[in-house]
């Protein structure tokens, strides 16, 4: 064979091999790219086959109302993770906001002016949540405390404050206006489901269409480069922790509204882990630079479905925790594959 034809052959081999990777590789990359969706489909299938009454409307409602709070917090967490940070205080902020609301509309003034009391019961707890977020943000961006340590402060003290405010008691109440947040229906589906969807759409829009989103991703992707390109790094960081805490505050109110009772000890307990898990399952990278908002929504659905599947089939909570851990491991493994 002369060298010219050898070259030609060689070129051909090059072209065809670049056109499509080998079968196994393609299968792996498909799994990596659509792993979350495949997992969701598998979960649904298992439930349809094994879980009694899974296809009832009531099941859907229960799951939507549960998943909404995880999703709302997970979206905030995804934004924080996109900057390379983490927020451990979301559960505590939920408890704090949730404890405040009944105190406000249940107060003398709140009873005397019900409408004012109701509005204040939304506005004030969320303002407190924003303040918590600002505290986290300032600690991290101005005082340069590591995010995991900075948010640990409120993780510990926030729930404590909430319990002090309520004397550690369960506060039950009857306030149909406030409870709409947790029990209302719009077009036949739970209100908080719509709320979570709306927040996701809004967050997606901000991340992908506005300068704020671009700045967020730039700070997470390379903070020094972003700063030297004129990105206001501090403002971005403080802002993102405020948004995360605000969303946690909303979730805290939703939980209280669902139960018509506020329990500062349990509201949002372990939510930080669910939210981080949902964000990671949804494709967030812990080193920052990526904010898959709808991924977080999907991640929340998966986390919730796993919980529900195990519960509905009579498996203990402790085992459910292990299952959750396995999901996170699988998600991280898939991410590693993706990076290759």
């Amino acid at each position, binding site marked *: 064979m002369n060298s010219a034809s050898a070259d030609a052959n*060689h070129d051909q081999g*090059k072209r065809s*091999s*670049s*056109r*499509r*990777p080998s079968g196994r*590789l393609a299968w792996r990359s498909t799994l990596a790219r659509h792993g979350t969706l495949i997992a969701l489909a598998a979960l649904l299938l298992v439930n349809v086959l094994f879980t009694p009454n899974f296809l009832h409307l009531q099941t859907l409602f229960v799951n939507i109302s549960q998943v909404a709070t995880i999703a709302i917090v997970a979206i905030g967490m995804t934004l924080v993770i996109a900057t390379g940070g983490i927020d451990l205080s979301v559960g505590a902020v939920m408890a704090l906001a949730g404890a405040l609301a009944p105190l406000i509309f249940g107060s003398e003034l709140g009873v005397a002016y019900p409408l004012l009391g109701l509005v204040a019961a939304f506005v004030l707890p969320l303002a407190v949540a924003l303040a918590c977020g600002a505290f986290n943000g300032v600690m991290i961006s101005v005082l340069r405390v590591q995010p995991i340590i900075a948010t640990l402060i409120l993780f510990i003290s926030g729930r404590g404050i909430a319990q002090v405010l309520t004397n550690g008691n369960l506060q039950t109440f009857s306030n149909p206006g406030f409870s709409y947040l947790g029990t209302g229906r719009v077009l036949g589906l739970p209100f908080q489901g719509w709320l979570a969807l709306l927040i996701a759409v809004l967050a997606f829009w901000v991340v992908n*269409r*506005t*300068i*704020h989103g*671009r*700045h967020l*991703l*730039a700070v*997470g*992707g*390379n903070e*020094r*480069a*972003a*700063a*030297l*390109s*004129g*990105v*206001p790094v501090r403002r971005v960081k403080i802002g993102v922790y405020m948004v995360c805490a605000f969303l946690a505050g909303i979730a805290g109110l939703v939980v209280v509204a669902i139960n018509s009772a506020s329990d500062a000890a349990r509201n949002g307990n372990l939510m930080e882990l669910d939210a981080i898990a949902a964000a990671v399952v949804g494709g967030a*990278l812990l080193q920052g*630079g*990526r904010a898959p908002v709808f991924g977080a929504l999907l991640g929340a659905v998966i986390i919730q479905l796993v919980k529900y599947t195990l519960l509905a089939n009579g498996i203990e909570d402790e085992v459910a925790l292990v299952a959750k851990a396995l999901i996170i491991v699988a998600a991280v493994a898939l991410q590693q594959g993706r990076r290759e």
Partner: protein
Amino acid sequence: MGASGAPLLSMRGIGKSFAGSMALDGASLSIGAGQVHGLIGQNGAGKSTLIKILTGVYVRDAGDVEFEGRALRIGSPREAQAAGISTIYQELTLVPLRSVTENVTLGYEPRTRFNTIDWRAAHARTRTILTGFGLDIDVRAPLGEHSTAIQQLVAIARAVSLQARLVIMDEPTSSLDEREVQVLFSVVKRLKAAGTSVLYVSHFLDELFAICDRVTVMRDGSTVADHPIARVSKLSLIADMLGRDIDEIESDGMTELGGGTNDAGELVFEATDLATGPRLSRLDLAVHAGEIVGLGGLLGSGRTEAARAVFGADALTGGSLRFTGQRTPPATPAQAIAAGIGFLTEDRKAEGIVPHMSVRENLTLALLPALTRGGLIRRTEERELVERFITALGIKTSGMDQPIRELSGGNQQKVLLARWLAIHPKLLILDEPTRGVDVGAKFEIQAIIREHVERGVGVLLISSEFEELVEGADHIVVMQDGVSVGRLSNPGITEERLVREIASVA
């Protein structure tokens, strides 16, 4: 055994492809025992891939590797080390918080009878090796307290302590100053004298002529030339790397900047007695529209600090800075950008690219405030603008939405240059604009800079390559220890004069 005997390492017909695209195709490399062997090529020529195959990071698809006369079969960097092949990476892979001794002996510590670490022996062994390098430092002190150069030598000491037969150095001088480079060279010579071979990968051709015995040139995944260094010229090496004709390159000159031919316009900025701290204590500098002012000096002489001060990235502690048309000097990068100042940073990876973001998002990062209305990014406009720059600068990318990390170094640098050209700068601060990019991209980048200087942009140029400064700048301000000590003007600057000025005692 000298160069005449059987080679220490022989790689033949090496092929490797990633996801269907060929990275190496018929690459070869042969290194004699006790030889210092240079390996050069443009970015993307396949040097790194070849080295990673040699050190067990990648597995080759085709070809043979023989080391010390036997077929080499390794599957991991650790196995390569055990076989006698050590690598000193561009990014140092040491533990800065642990002592020098621990870094040298990590994983191979001498043991006492009770199987605990014999620190006395470990310190002594480390000290012996380092003394051999002409280095007298406290081996018990944390490594991080020493300079980058010393850390690099410690990395080499580690390789020596592991009885390496071949030490691979990947761009070892990229963060060293002139004196430190000389220390490194003397260590390389000692290694050679002790019979250890060195594979020396560098973009700086002058270094190859200083210490290498042979040089191998790679292009497009193949080995295209292999010469004894004594028989080649710098120009012919460049010609090999580019695959171009020597005469063609010669007529074009070595740089495209055209110093001394530019017509200076009105004053852009003027700095008097500028200071930001111990590393920048007294700088006098002025740049006019349409001229290139170079900052000459050694690493650590305050060149980068000067750039940061002018850009508002460091707070001023003294002196004055006046920009034409601005009442106050910029206090933050954002203000500097708004005032029409661009700053192409020296460290592309750490301070330039945002790796996860696309070419488009990286390119418009600094311009973004001007591209938004009410917080909303005007996307059609953004795409048009990016498209224009990709065409104008010849950026090689599969599309503007490709992540920038997938581009070659030269193309990343073009995107970053475009990031600053997009703001329509009055002043461009370029810190090592062509470092770490291949020769072809270097010419292109210089030509782009030239074009914008002709349109009236003032350029402040920092470069460790004297050639680039001497041929490229209209004026050179020379710095020593944070102080500007002299000013040279083109035409008339020679490398000799610049070196004399830099080395002069103030």
